[in-house]
């Protein structure tokens, strides 16, 4: 929510400026509902809306991540209670096993909570939310501008489009698609050298679209993709790089919501990682490439 404060302050200033400008040019008293919103104000409102949607989404992912170990704790306590009621302490092995599990679940819970403290809201620069059909090529070319702001000045972001049909229309929630791509590009930048090239390769073949974000960074190491998409799990060899570890989890959850698949794998023959997002107008991507 921190990102919202300056946006709201700017919006209020924008309104006041507009009001002053209208009053200065008119002798007629101002009626508030007659004020026309300027392009700036409209843009600010869109950004605020995007932030609120994004914050709600982050909360939803966090809620799921926290509820899972909580369920384990609650159920194990109930198991222990039931066992005590029926058998007393006659089966110490079960007690030891469950107490050990409680300790692990509590540690997981603590880990998540500690990381939550360090989570910073990130800027989400996309616009309206909700499903809509758009020409993917134009959207990507336009989106490239805001994605370019997520990398460092010395890095280069390349967008290569290999479209079978240049006018291909894809129907999805573009706000979420923007969050996913933003997270992938941000991650690629964070884990790549200062002068690195980050490549976005888009391949479209009939209903299937593959968006690959390819970096030359530290790679996945021995981490499995499945672990990395869990909240706050981070790759090996990234100890010196700041990050919450939540980004990929959010991107993964967002991918699931738009019925896309998110895959992560090491580049073949060279260092770095490829994050591949598979989209299909037919909805569900049935095959997994993990």
């Amino acid at each position: 929510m921190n990102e919202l404060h300056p946006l709201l302050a700017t919006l209020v200033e924008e309104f006041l400026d507009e009001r002053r400008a209208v009053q200065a040019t008119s002798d007629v008293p101002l009626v508030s509902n007659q004020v026309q919103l300027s392009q700036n104000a409209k843009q600010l409102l869109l950004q605020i809306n995007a932030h609120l949607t994004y914050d709600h989404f982050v909360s939803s992912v966090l809620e799921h991540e926290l509820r899972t170990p909580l369920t384990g704790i609650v159920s194990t306590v109930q198991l222990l209670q039931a066992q005590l009621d029926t058998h007393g302490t006659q089966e110490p092995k079960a007690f030891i096993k469950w107490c050990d599990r409680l300790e692990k679940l509590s540690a997981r819970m603590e880990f998540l909570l500690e990381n939550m403290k360090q989570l910073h809201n990130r800027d989400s620069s996309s616009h309206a939310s909700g499903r809509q059909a758009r020409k993917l090529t134009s959207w990507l070319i336009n989106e490239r501008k805001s994605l370019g702001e997520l990398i460092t000045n010395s890095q280069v972001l390349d967008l290569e489009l290999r479209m079978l049909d240049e006018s291909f229309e894809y129907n999805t929630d573009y706000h979420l698609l923007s969050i996913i791509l933003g997270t992938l590009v941000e991650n690629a930048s964070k884990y790549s050298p200062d002068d690195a090239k980050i490549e976005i390769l888009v391949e479209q073949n009939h209903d299937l679209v593959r968006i690959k974000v390819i970096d030359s960074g530290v790679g996945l190491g021995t981490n499995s993709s499945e672990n990395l998409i869990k909240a706050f799990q981070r790759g090996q060899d990234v100890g010196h790089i700041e990050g919450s570890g939540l980004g990929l989890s959010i991107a993964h959850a967002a991918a699931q919501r738009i019925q896309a698949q998110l895959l992560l794998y090491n580049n073949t023959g060279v260092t770095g990682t490829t994050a591949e997002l598979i989209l299909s107008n037919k909805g569900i991507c049935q095959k997994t490439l993990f």
Partner: protein
Amino acid sequence: MSKNTVLVVEDDQLLREVIEDLLYIHHIEVKTVGNSTEADDWLEEQVPDLIICDLFLPKVSGIQWLNTVSERLVANESSIILLSADHERTPEMLEDSPIHSLVKYQLKKPFKNDELIRLIHLLQPNS
């Protein structure tokens, strides 16, 4: 493994073990798997009458996976209990899904053990 075996698809290993212990204590046959690929493998052998499935799985969502195996589940008239942390979005995700009618209950995490056992007995009286 029999058709009475309850298939539990949950990616969190510790929670999987908790559910396994809970069902074992109540003499309910259970097979637990951590992702959709393992679940697919197991489905090759046996289509269960009851599946307990987490909404968020690592590769595809629980509903995405269930959709991919829907033909077999519908033919078998299997029942599904969905485990989720977010009930608000489930109807949206289930919209137009072929497994819509098979989802009998949604349990919000954390759930009570007794509630899960009651639902299993309700959906699978022979268990």
